[in-house]
C-alpha cells in the first residue's frame, strides 16, 4: 500500500533538493518562505484537522517562537540551533498554560478563546518596548555566516522542516494521532471508552504549538527582523487559509496550501495593487467550488492516493 506514497514523497523531496539550483534568488527565498509557512500550517492542522478544533490564535505560538529565537540571538548572542530548540520549548510552555483553558471549550468558543489569548500575547509583545522593541520589532537577527546566503538557508530550512513534518506525520499515524481523530469525531464516546480526553487534547495542543514555535524560530533569521505582527490575528488566519485551500483532511493539504498561498502573495502582489481583491476572489472560488481543498480534488480524481485503511489482508501474520 504505502509504496506509492513513498514514491511521491521521494519525488517531491528530490524536487525540493534540485529546484533551487535552477531558480533565481528571489524564488529561492519564496521557496524558503513556503517551507516555513508550510511547517506552520501543518502544525496548525494538528489541532484543526486532527483534533477538530479551529485555533484562531495559532500565530501566538509562532510569534513566541520567533521572538524567543530573535531575542536569544540578538540580545544574548546564542547560536541558531539552541535558539530554535528554545523556541519550541518556550512556545510549548506558553501553550501549556493557555491550552489548559482552551481545551475545555469546543467549536466557535475554542476559536475565539484561542484568538483572545493570541491577541493578549500580541499585546504583550507589542507593549513591552524595553524587551521586545514594541512595534518596531527586532532587527539584526542574522543566521550564522554559513547560512547567510539564500541558498544555504534554504537547505537548512528544508532539513529542519522535513524533519519536523516527518515527526508530525509519524505522530498523525500513531495511536495518539488516531486518538485525536477519535476526539474530533466524537469526544463523548472517547471519554466513555476510558480516555482522559482533556489530557490528550492538551498534549496535542502543546505539541502543535511547539512546531509552530519552531516555524517562528526559523522565520526571524530568514527575514532578518521580526515584528509583533507575526502574532496578530491576521497571521493566525494564514494557516487557516492555507489549510482550507490545501485541504484539511490529508496530511499534505496544508503544505499544498502553503505553496499556493505564498506563491500567490509573492506573485499577485507583484503585478496588481488590487491584490486583496484578487486574493479574495480566489479564496471565494476555492471555498465555493473546491470543498475539501486541493487535496480533496486530488482525492477525488487522483491516483496518487493511499487506499483507505482497512484491516490487514492477513490478520494473523505481518505484525510483530
Amino acid at each position, binding site marked *: 500500500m504505502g509504496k506509492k506514497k513513498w514514491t511521491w514523497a521521494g519525488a517531491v523531496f528530490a524536487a525540493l533538493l534540485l529546484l533551487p539550483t535552477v531558480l533565481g534568488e528571489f524564488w529561492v527565498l519564496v521557496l524558503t518562505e513556503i517551507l516555513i509557512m508550510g511547517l506552520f500550517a501543518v502544525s496548525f492542522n494538528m489541532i484543526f484537522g486532527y483534533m477538530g478544533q479551529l485555533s484562531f490564535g495559532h500565530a501566538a505560538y509562532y510569534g513566541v517562537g520567533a521572538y524567543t529565537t530573535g531575542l536569544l540571538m540578538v540580545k544574548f548572542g546564542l547560536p541558531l540551533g539552541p535558539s530554535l530548540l528554545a523556541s519550541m520549548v518556550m512556545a510549548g510552555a506558553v501553550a501549556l498554560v493557555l491550552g489548559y483553558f482552551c481545551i475545555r471549550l469546543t467549536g466557535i468558543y475554542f476559536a475565539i478563546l484561542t484568538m483572545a489569548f493570541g491577541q493578549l500575547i500580541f499585546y504583550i509583545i507589542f507593549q513591552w518596548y524595553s524587551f521586545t522593541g514594541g512595534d518596531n520589532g527586532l532587527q539584526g537577527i542574522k543566521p550564522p555566516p554559513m547560512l547567510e546566503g539564500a541558498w544555504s538557508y534554504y537547505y537548512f530550512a528544508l532539513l529542519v522542516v522535513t524533519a519536523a513534518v516527518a515527526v508530525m506525520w509519524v505522530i498523525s499515524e500513531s*495511536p495518539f*494521532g488516531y486518538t485525536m*481523530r477519535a476526539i474530533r*469525531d*466524537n469526544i463523548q464516546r472517547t471519554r466513555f*471508552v*476510558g480516555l*482522559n480526553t482533556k489530557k490528550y487534547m492538551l498534549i496535542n495542543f502543546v505539541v502543535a504549538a511547539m512546531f509552530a514555535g519552531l516555524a517562528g524560530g526559523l522565520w526571524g533569521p530568514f527575514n532578518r527582523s521580526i515584528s509583533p505582527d507575526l502574532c496578530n490575528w491576521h497571521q493566525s488566519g494564514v494557516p487557516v487559509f492555507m489549510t482550507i485551500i490545501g485541504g484539511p483532511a490529508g496530511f499534505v493539504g496544508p503544505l499544498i496550501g502553503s505553496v499556493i498561498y505564498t506563491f500567490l502573495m509573492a506573485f499577485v502582489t507583484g503585478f496588481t495593487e488590487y491584490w486583496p481583491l484578487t486574493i479574495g476572489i480566489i479564496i471565494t472560488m476555492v471555498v465555493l467550488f473546491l470543498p475539501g481543498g486541493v487535496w480533496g480534488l486530488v482525492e477525488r480524481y487522483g491516483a496518487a492516493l493511499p487506499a483507505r485503511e*482497512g484491516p*490487514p489482508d492477513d490478520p494473523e501474520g505481518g505484525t510483530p
Partner: protein
Amino acid sequence: MNGDYILAVEGLCKAFGGLQATSEVTYSMRPGELSAIIGPNGAGKSTFFNLITGFHRPDKGKVLFKGADVTSWSSYRIARFGMSRAFQVSNIYPMLTTYQNVRQAILVQQRRTMDLFRRAEHLARKETTELLEVTGLGEHHQEMAGTMSQGDKKRLELALALAIKPDLLLLDEPTAGMSVEETHETMELVARLNREMGVTILFTEHDMSVVFGYARRLTVLHQGALIADGAPQDVRADEEVQRVYLGEEV
C-alpha cells in the same frame, strides 16, 4: 458495602429543574448477572445509566463499583476501571471506518494511545478483526461508520463497548432499530459474553421478547423510582407493572 456486589447503588437521586428523574434508587448486582431494567419512556432508565457511568453527577446517593466509591469519578476513569456502556442513540465515530472505530477502543484498552511514534496501522490487528467478526460487522470494516444503517450502527456501538473488556456492561436499548433476526443474533452474543466470559450485564429494552427471553432478573423503574425487582415471571405478574408499562399482552 458487601464485597459480593460488583455494583451497588445507594439512594441515588437526580433532579433536572423540577423534574425528579431518579429518586432514591437503591440497586445492586452480583458478578455474572444478566439483568434488565424496564420502564415507560422517561422513567429514568438512561438517566440511571448516566449517573452510574459518571456522565451526570448525582444530587444524592452513592455508587460503588467493584468495591470502590466511584460517585465523583469522571466518566473516563470509571470506564477505565471496567464499566462500559452502549448508548441508546448510537454514539460512534462517524468519520472513521468501522475498523478504525473498533481499533481505537482496543488501543485504549491496551493502554497504547500515548504512543506517539508507532504506526497505529500495525497495532491490534488481530483483536480488531476478531471483535468485528464477533459482532457481525466483518463485511462493513471498510465503511465509513456514519453512513451505515441504524441497525449496524447499534452493533458497532456494542462493539465499542465490548472492546475495552469491561467487567460490567451497560446496554441502553441495544437492539433498537434491528430486525427480528438481528435482534436475536445480538442478544445471543450478549448472552454468550455473559455466560462464557462472565461479564456482568445490565440492559434496558422496550422489546418484551428480548427482555423476557434473556434477562434473568428484571427491575422496573417508574417516574424515577424502583417499583419492582425480581425474577421476570414475578415482575410480569406484578399489577403495578402491568398498569404502568406492559398493558395487557401485546
